[in-house]
């Protein structure tokens, strides 16, 4: 048994214990660890955004554009031509990058009450674009491809097992869809079908839960291995 001598291993181990102590009850160790965690996580993401977004996409192009201006005059930094001699308004080293920066800066208008409505512009841009591209994507993956997979064909009937499986999947899929049908009360013929649907859903959820248990235990095991092996050195 040789206990770790590394500073950061000790920090990690003590934080691990402090957070685990929350299982017993809220206590000052947990509160300290939680607040430290939130602070460091925020600081970490600021730094990453700085290096991965701000520097390469804002500062570098502006610096490049300033350089172009100092060498070739002001117009060159706005009107850059690409290799096909086509005007390229979105060349890297270009003051064009100021436009999205200005749009982004509208977020900050929230602090100025009289024009705070302008915050809706960057929000609208982001939402408009991403909601629009999400529609074909979700139609393709969750609807059209699932439709294709749901349709039975003669080749599914090659063996008895495949046939039974295929039919069962078909019927239970229909039942699940019926269960989520909001336009009608689950009465009459819909009642047994939607019951099959909810039972199928429950089997699916049970399976998910069962599978998850394994995943979560793995994580706890990982933590204990850290404590007993890396920190305390009790296990080889």
């Amino acid at each position, binding site marked *: 048994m040789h206990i770790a001598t590394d500073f950061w291993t000790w920090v990690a181990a003590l934080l691990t214990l402090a957070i685990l102590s929350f299982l017993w009850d809220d206590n000052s160790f947990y509160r300290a660890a939680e607040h430290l965690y939130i602070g460091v996580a925020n600081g970490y993401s600021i730094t990453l955004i700085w290096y991965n977004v701000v520097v390469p996409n804002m500062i570098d192009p502006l610096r490049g554009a300033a350089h172009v201006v100092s060498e070739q005059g002001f117009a060159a930094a706005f009107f850059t031509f690409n290799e096909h001699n086509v005007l390229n308004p979105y060349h890297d080293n270009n003051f064009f990058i100021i436009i999205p920066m200005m749009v982004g800066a509208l977020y900050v208008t929230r602090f100025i009450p009289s024009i705070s409505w302008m915050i809706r512009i960057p929000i609208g841009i982001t939402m408009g674009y991403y909601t629009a591209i999400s529609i074909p994507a979700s139609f393709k993956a969750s609807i059209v*491809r699932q439709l294709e*997979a749901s349709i039975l064909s003669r080749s599914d009937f090659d063996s008895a097992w495949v046939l039974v499986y295929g039919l069962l999947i078909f019927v239970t899929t229909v039942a699940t869809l019926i269960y989520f049908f909001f336009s009608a009360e689950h009465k009459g013929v819909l009642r047994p079908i939607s019951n099959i649907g909810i039972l199928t859903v429950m089997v699916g959820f049970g399976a*998910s839960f069962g*599978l998850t248990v394994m995943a979560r235990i793995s994580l706890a*095991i*990982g933590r204990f291995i850290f404590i007993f092996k890396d920190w305390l050195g009790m*296990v080889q």
Partner: protein
Amino acid sequence: MENKTIWTRMMNIDRRIIYVIVAIVMILPIIFPFNLPMRVSKRTTQALFDAIDNFPSENGVFLISADLSPQDQPELYPMLVSWIRHCFHRDIKVLVMCLYPTSLGLAEQALNQVATEFNNRASTGIGRRVVYGEDFVFLGYKPPPIVPILGLGENIYEVYPRDFYGNDLRTLPMMVSKRIKSYRDMDMIGSIAANSLPITYVAYAQARFGIRVTGGVTAVSVADFYPYLDSGQLTGMLEGMKGAAEYEQLIVEKFPEDNGRRMATEGMSAQSSTHIAIILMILLGNVCYFMQRRHEKRGI
């Protein structure tokens, strides 16, 4: 107070007692491990192993989107290590990228670990050395996720002009010799993630660019991926620690010289004991429930 039977009390047991039991059951096998027989799942682990083993051209290219975070490390990290090992054994070029900053450290650690493993082995005369830039490239991280997912379908050099270490990506020998530009030049995407990223890859990368996608996923999300596995959108997958342990076994069977640490296999004994404990607890909970109901009926 007097009508509180043992069953009622057992049913409303303080959750801390459960926590203590679970901790003990988990810790003991870590200190005293035991070995267990294993069975490889055909549709998931074996299918994936075969797919990587049968990349159409030798020296294939495998893009690994390593989006594991430290939290899911015990499950996902062994998968990443196994994939890289398999690729290095088969001389498949490996591209690793991260969609989340939290994955960077682990992804780099995995590459380094496997590279050290191979290079140490090579120094004893077994296998070959692997070299950064020739056998693997670490692309690093570029937010938000949708940017690299879609962007790599068009042009990898636009999304990642430089690799993680700041090299001009176009100058790396492997990128030059394999003429890697977009998904079309890669054989498969392997998405290691604790969330639905493999499905995002299916929805965007596969739907738009037609590349094969596989997943290394936590056991929790496995159930979600079955529809995709069934419809052929996913080419095999690894199911949590169990899948990783199976993959480790397949690699050792195929490449007996592999002497790397098999982390998933190590964790499986504590895994089993805790499962048994939970199953016993659920049984106990139900026994208490029924006994209490019987007691109530008799009482009324």
